[in-house]
């Protein structure tokens, strides 16, 4: 056998050993199976995401320093990390004093890092603002019929996005608000405009408003505003501290809370977040309390208390706060309920990160799965 023949045989032998055929899988799964998998993936994608989704080089590039790579086994674990980060890092201090709202230092940091653009065309207002960090976030404006998404990204990612958008369509270069701008056209009259970086971020707006002229009209109505004006423009769905305590109380009505449950941890006056984010935090606090109650009961040999904790967690899908919040996050609760019923709580690592060439484990898994505090970080030793 000559050398060339050997190479060909190697690949042929390899191909003959292929353990999975996409065509056969497609036939086996069927359309219904694909639709179920599609819904599952979108649910996962919509859930509070990992700081750096595995394999997401764009996010890696954009975030710069974060290097989290969580194992999918802890589906909710990484989401918990982000949720915690959201509640902390995106915390806003609202509240009214003398008729003038005052905002927390964290909120001001977000606003100061942002170009703070508002659509000033009549009828337009902010209708959604659920991703807020100084270097990355999104606000949606609406006029009741149309919507315009405004995103900001780290300035260091500008080149990457510019090259990417240049592949969408011919780029129209211009100026907007004294900044260089580039506009591209997506299908069906949807346009996107990027502004050159200003400070640590750059902004991109994107909308489908029927015609290029209508898009330009709204685009030209963008105005840069001061910090206070920008923060005041946030929608009612953003919960301000004054209302937070009462809202937490309302969310807890009809929900069985664990012994010694203290909702004050949820009433941090330095926090302001969307209602749905707060709903997840409230439910998580209750769930974490029940699991801690279960742990104490098992330690103390209190079978009745342990049973009560399992029953409470098993009924979590009926908690009013869970039903009203409708977050895919709550799918994580089933994982822990199964563990409680089996009498074995997963206290192992929820995932790993690479740091300085070492593998670092974080856990315990159940706390990440439920978004609880009190997690640990250890060097992975195999």
């Amino acid at each position, binding site marked *: 056998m000559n050398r060339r023949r050997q190479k060909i045989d*190697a690949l042929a032998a390899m191909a003959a050993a292929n353990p999975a055929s996409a065509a056969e899988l497609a036939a086996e799964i069927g359309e219904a199976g694909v639709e179920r998998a599609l819904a599952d993936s979108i649910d996962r994608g919509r859930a509070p995401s990992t700081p750096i989704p595995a394999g*997401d080089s764009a996010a890696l590039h954009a975030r710069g320093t974060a290097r989290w790579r969580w*194992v*999918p086994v802890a589906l909710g674990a990484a989401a918990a990390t982000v949720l915690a980060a959201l509640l902390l890092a995106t915390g806003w201090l609202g509240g009214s004093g003398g008729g003038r709202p005052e905002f927390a230092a964290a909120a001001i940091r977000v606003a100061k890092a942002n170009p703070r653009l508002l659509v000033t065309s009549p009828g337009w207002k902010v209708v959604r603002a659920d991703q807020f960090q100084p270097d990355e976030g999104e606000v949606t404006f609406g006029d009741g019929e149309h919507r315009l998404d405004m995103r900001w990204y780290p300035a260091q990612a500008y080149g990457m996005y510019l090259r990417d958008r240049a592949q969408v369509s011919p780029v129209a270069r211009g100026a907007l608000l004294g900044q260089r701008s580039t506009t591209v056209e997506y299908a069906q009259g949807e346009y996107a405009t990027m502004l050159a970086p200003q400070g640590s971020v750059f902004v991109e707006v994107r909308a489908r408003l029927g015609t290029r002229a209508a898009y330009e009209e709204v685009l030209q109505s963008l105005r840069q505003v001061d910090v206070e004006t920008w923060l005041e423009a946030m929608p009612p769905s953003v919960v301000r501290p004054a209302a937070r305590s009462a809202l937490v109380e309302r969310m807890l009505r009809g929900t069985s809370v664990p012994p010694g449950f203290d909702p004050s941890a949820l009433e941090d006056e330095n926090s302001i977040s969307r209602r749905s984010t707060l709903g997840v935090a409230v439910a998580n606090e209750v769930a974490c309390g029940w699991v801690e109650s279960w742990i104490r009961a098992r330690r103390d040999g209190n079978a009745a208390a342990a049973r009560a904790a399992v029953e409470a967690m098993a009924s979590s899908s009926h908690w009013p706060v869970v039903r009203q919040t409708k977050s895919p996050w709550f799918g994580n609760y089933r994982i822990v309920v199964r563990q409680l019923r089996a009498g074995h709580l997963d206290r192992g690592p929820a995932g790993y990160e690479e740091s300085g060439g070492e593998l670092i484990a974080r856990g315990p898994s159940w706390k990440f799965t439920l978004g609880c505090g009190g997690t640990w970080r250890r060097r992975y030793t195999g």
Partner: protein
Amino acid sequence: MLTDIYRQMPERSEQPGAPPTGERGFESCFRDNYASVLAFAIRRLPDRATAEDAASETFAVAWRRRDLIPDEPLPWLYGIALRVVANQRRSGARRGRLRDRLTHEAGARGPVEGAFDALHHRDSFSRAFRLLAEDDREVLRLIAWDGLDSAEAARVLGCSSAAFRVRLHRARRRLAKHLAAGGHSPGEEPR
């Protein structure tokens, strides 16, 4: 090493002729490519459930970055899937320390084996395949099992086409050598 390969994910901007498709394009991308991504995961992971989880996670990442989905999304999706699979293997490594130890004692190199390696180790091809370093195995999988050409496979691994062709040439040569040493005949089918 394996993890070094996975760090080299190509950025969307490096892929020519690939406009973002946005949310509306995501669903059609999913329907067109789900089976391929699932097959990709099955070829590398120890069981079907783990592979399905990896496929879902791959598309969850794709959904979050749906503005960056290229016209020919499969190599891009495979690049994401490769990292998800790496995470799955790391998780498997934690839970399967005993299996790892036995594997290493048997002389195999690289991380935890996939379904193929675990289930078909008796035939001569599989023995030869298991003697390869994981880097070589991955290069060969992308071509022989995933059906990519060298340029696409290079994009998945984040290296140049020229570098990939060199790696493929060497991997093929090493596999052929192991096959010959193991007495594999050209017509032999894996059991």
